[in-house]
């Protein structure tokens, strides 16, 4: 993972920060008010022609933050404040969380999302990933299965107990010595399903690695997954709820998120295949009527918006499954598959899907 971008080591970043500061001072001395120009990145748009080039890592247009507008002034203020903190972190070689940064000036930042955006702005400005700034997320992901690796000298030996959960490492760049005898990687949307598979001792009998991001995956989970895919070259499957949010989580794994579009190339896992749950699974596995919940208005709106995302042109089958979901008007959760038998997922569902190649 290291060296994905040029000049992202702390001293290079510190130099960039200094250069930026210098240019600000220079502008001021020339009577120009501070202006920051940021590339605009997006990982999807609603261009139906597919010529939008959203998939590339080039920026689309720029954003100019200056003092011309009030909200820009505030944004600049926040950006600079966060930059001071980042400079400190880099100089002291410390790591801080987004939350740490937020609490440095809670009255100015007023909301965590403001800090998040400033961090994204700084990443774009300095051409680096967030972890390069020494800003870490609180890790949420869990991993288990036929895997062993070390992070900063500490060994995570999942091999000895493949059905025991381990937290996903936060300093993914320090992950080394990855050893695995797994045949595939399974990504599950939620912890409950992860726990189900752990309780079923699924990994004891199936040579695989299971990862969950507990909902929308955080950066360490996605980077770790991406690292595993790069190092191990294993097929990777994803199991999400059959609802618009599950689908969105799926696309986040594959295409990245809009917020982190500038970094999508380092975070997305284009190889991921959708294992389930498909709308058609409700019939195949005879889910009782009650377990199919109607799509809410919000669900429908979200699904309709997702249908127009340009990147789905690369995944037409995914798109048509989403269309089917929208047309059927119902959704269901993975847990609903446990209705007939508590271990259906481990005993039948996943094995049969993998054997039959029922993934897309």
């Amino acid at each position, binding site marked *: 993972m290291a060296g994905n971008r040029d000049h992202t080591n702390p001293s290079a970043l510190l130099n960039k920060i200094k250069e930026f500061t210098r240019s600000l001072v220079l502008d001021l001395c020339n009577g120009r008010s501070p202006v920051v120009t940021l590339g605009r990145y997006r990982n999807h748009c609603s261009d139906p022609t597919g010529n939008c080039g959203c998939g590339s890592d080039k920026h689309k247009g720029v954003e100019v933050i200056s003092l011309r507008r009030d909200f820009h002034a505030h944004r600049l203020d926040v950006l600079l404040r966060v930059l001071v903190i980042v400079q*400190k*972190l880099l100089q*002291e070689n*410390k*790591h*801080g*969380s987004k*939350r*740490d940064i*937020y*609490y*440095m*000036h*809670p*009255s*100015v930042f007023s909301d965590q999302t403001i800090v998040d955006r400033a961090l994204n702005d700084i990443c774009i400005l300095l051409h680096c990933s967030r972890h390069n700034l020494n800003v*870490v997320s*609180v*890790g949420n992901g*869990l991993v288990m299965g036929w895997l062993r690796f070390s*992070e*900063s*000298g*500490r060994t995570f*030996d999942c091999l*000895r*107990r493949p059905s025991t*959960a*381990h*937290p996903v*490492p*936060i*300093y993914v760049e320090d992950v080394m010595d990855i050893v695995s005898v797994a045949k595939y990687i399974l990504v599950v949307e939620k*912890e*409950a399903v992860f*726990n*189900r598979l752990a*309780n079923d001792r699924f990994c004891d009998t199936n040579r695989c690695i299971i990862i969950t991001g507990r909902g929308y995956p955080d950066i360490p989970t996605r980077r770790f997954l991406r690292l595993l895919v790069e190092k191990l070259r294993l097929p990777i499957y994803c199991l999400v709820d059959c609802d618009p949010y599950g689908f969105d989580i799926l696309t986040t794994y594959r295409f990245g998120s809009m917020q982190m579009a500038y970094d999508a190339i380092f975070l997305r896992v284009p190889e991921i295949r959708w294992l389930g749950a498909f709308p058609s699974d409700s019939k195949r596995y005879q*889910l*009782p009527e*009650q*377990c199919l919940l109607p799509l809410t208005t919000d669900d429908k709106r979200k699904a309709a918006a997702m249908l127009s995302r340009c990147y789905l042109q690369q995944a037409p089958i995914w798109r048509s499954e989403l269309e089917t979901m929208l047309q059927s008007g119902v959704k269901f*959760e993975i*847990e*609903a598959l*446990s*209705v007939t038998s*508590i*271990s259906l997922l481990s005993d039948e569902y996943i094995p049969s899907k993998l054997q039959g190649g029922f993934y897309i």
Partner: protein
Amino acid sequence: MADLYKSSLLYSDQLLCYADVLPPSQVQARIEVAVLNFLKTLSSPTPAISDLALINRRTSNSHVRRGLLTDVSSVFLSRSFSVRSLMRPNAAKAFIRVWKVMEICYQLLIKGKMVTQRELFYKLLSSSPEFFASQLQVNRSIQEVVALLRCSRHSLGIMASSRGAIAGRLVLQKEPEQEIVDCTMCGSSGHAITGDLNVLEKLIIQSDARYVIVVEKHAIFQRLAEDHIFNQIPSILVTGKGYPDIATRFLLHRISKTFPHMPLFALVDWNPAGLAILCTFKFGSVGMGLEAYRYACNVKWLGLRGDDLQLIPEESLIPLKPRDLQIAKSLMASEILKDPYREELELMVSRSQRAEIEALYCHGYNFLGKYIVEKIVQANYL
């Protein structure tokens, strides 16, 4: 009578009600006793549907126990109970829900399986849709089964994940001759505490630490772990990531029982929620159901406290939010909150301000470690 209980200092442990962590066979046996009781009453000369006596989980049934010989206080539910009756108007469905949940748990126990609450919901939704319409009803019914059988939810075969993490001078071993986890080597996110209470109960714990530091927030925990503060002060770090779950409290309780002379310190935000989190570690809470009471630990309040405010720049003090006031109100109403904790809470309310631990970072990221050391050395805790 209830008042007498409340005022009595000589409250014996017998009157406490809490849920036991039981092996499956014992839970099974308790369910069987419930069935036999039901059938006995039903087949008696004056047949009746026997009511279910649940430990009353209302706040009004909570009491404070103060140890005479130890420093530990806790909240607990006394033997006052509520009745689930089939014959009561508007209660028949809830009555049957208890039995339905018990039936599924019984079958799970026989199979040796665990389920999540969500899976349980779907199972019940598909088998008895007329009784279960929402997850909430399932959750409540589970709580009632817990209150009926007086065993932990986990013992019933219901999985819960734990959010808690632990790090520091602690070595954990699941069973003798099994893999050893050295918590100084767990990285900054710490060792994830398992939700499996049975595992936690059997855990073999070794430590050369002198203190346990309970941290409200994961981010602070991470910072302290990254700084290896447990090497500066020989200590164990624990976080529940906000309000602690049962497993986290259970493990903390086990540590404090295993090492009775190891003081426990809490580092929480200076706001009512921070105090409430501290109190949950310290006393337990009614909201957590029947399982929560026995894991009370004598946690001391290290920081942040009112006299730390001098360390915090004015701009980092945020006004109290309505939610804070709500929590403050419920804390104030509790008889367990004594001075000087009560005074601290009053100070928060009167200043109408709150401060987060992170506010100390204005003195640099190393400051937090110094702060903790200084407080411990000066015995500056409540």
